[in-house]
């Protein structure tokens, strides 16, 4: 467990003990990343704030479900994914966005992919990936989760999570070169 995770775990234990300050600190450390993840899942920032509130409210109501043996960050990201999937409205949005594959506002841009093209091109390239590939790719490269953690969140094996991310990166490269050729 990393130093950041250790700190978050300590905060979670204090929060379970009834500390409001610990909750605020957890929010301060995780809200930005969780919001970006929700923004990716929902295909835009429109509902991300609502979903973010729901995630932290759900975390509060289910704070007893956290066991200090778990790393906090994947637990909260997994909960955010859960909140998103449980929300019908957001799920419908997900379906429509991934059918159209037109626009991905506020889509996160991978640090590794930065050299492959402009931010706009990368956003467009990511939109061509399958939702599974894009999610695994972003969880690993953008939010720094290990493949074991991604596997636990997505209900798959670490090898499958790695394969999705790897295929996603290959497809992203192909999409980017295709986009660049079209532009040229």
């Amino acid at each position, binding site marked *: 467990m990393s130093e950041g995770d250790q700190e978050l775990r300590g905060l979670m*234990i204090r929060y*379970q*003990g*009834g*500390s*409001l300050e610990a*909750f*605020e600190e957890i*929010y*301060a*450390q995780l*809200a*930005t990343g969780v919001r970006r993840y929700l923004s990716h899942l929902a295909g835009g920032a429109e509902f991300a704030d*609502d979903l973010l*509130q*729901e995630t*932290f*409210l*759900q975390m*509060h*109501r*289910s*704070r*007893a*479900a*956290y*066991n*200090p*043996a*778990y*790393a906090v960050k*994947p*637990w*909260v*990201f*997994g*909960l955010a*994914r*859960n*909140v998103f*999937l*449980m*929300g019908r409205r957001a799920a419908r949005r997900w379906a429509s966005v991934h059918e159209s594959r037109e626009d991905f506002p506020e889509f996160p841009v991978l640090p590794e992919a930065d050299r492959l093209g402009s931010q706009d091109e990368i956003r467009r390239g990511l939109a061509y990936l399958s939702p599974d590939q894009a999610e695994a790719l972003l969880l690993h490269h953008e939010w720094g989760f290990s493949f074991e*953690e991604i*596997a*636990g*969140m*997505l*209900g*798959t*094996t670490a090898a*499958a999570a790695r394969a999705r991310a790897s295929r996603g990166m290959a497809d992203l490269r192909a999409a980017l070169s295709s986009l660049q050729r079209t532009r040229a």
Partner: protein
Amino acid sequence: MIDRSPKPPEALMRAIAQDLRPVKPSPQPLQLALRMIPLALLISSAILLAVGPRQDLNVLGPFLTWGASAAQFMLAIALIWIAAHESIPAGRLPRQIVYAAAVAGLLFVVFVTLLTFSTSPATAPLVRVPPQVNEMLRDSPWIMGFGCGIGSTVAGGILVLFFSWAFRNSLATRPTMAGALYGAGAGLAINAGWRIACPFSTPWHALGAHGAAIIATVLLGALIGRYLGKRRSHIGGRPS
């Protein structure tokens, strides 16, 4: 220096501040599954204490009676362990493991049923009850099927309710699946006890009556899981 870290919205803070009582962390999946053993053992063996073991135990031998039931009981605990994993947002097991365990449970019951029938094809009830009751059961075997089906469904249902309480903090992405898994665990655990007590070996009885009870507990678990999942998403709505 300006602090740019995000602050929770006021509505959220109000909702949080309303209930900040200390809570006890949930156990890990293995601990949770192990804690279920005493009650599952008690309820599944209640039928043995009530009517005693079947009278062809010597023919079947310890492997096909206590051994097979012990293995089935362990499989039931494994299903509860998988359900507990399914209930953690970042602790889910690969789908292949989940489905393989469910199929293994099903195949195990069918295999043991057929093996029991081929070893001791007991078709007439020899229950420790007055002779006229045994006579009636011989003439109308469906009564026995009905009794076993209803009895093990009720016992399994009690266990499912207890498991639902133990899984009340579940954060499963697929709550219906999590419920079905611990429902299957309850069904298999109960069947592990009932199969040693029931004097009928015919596949139609073992799979029709006892199998139906397992399916009923799976469905009950799935329905409760679904209800708890919906309730969670409902109470988790945005703070006003």
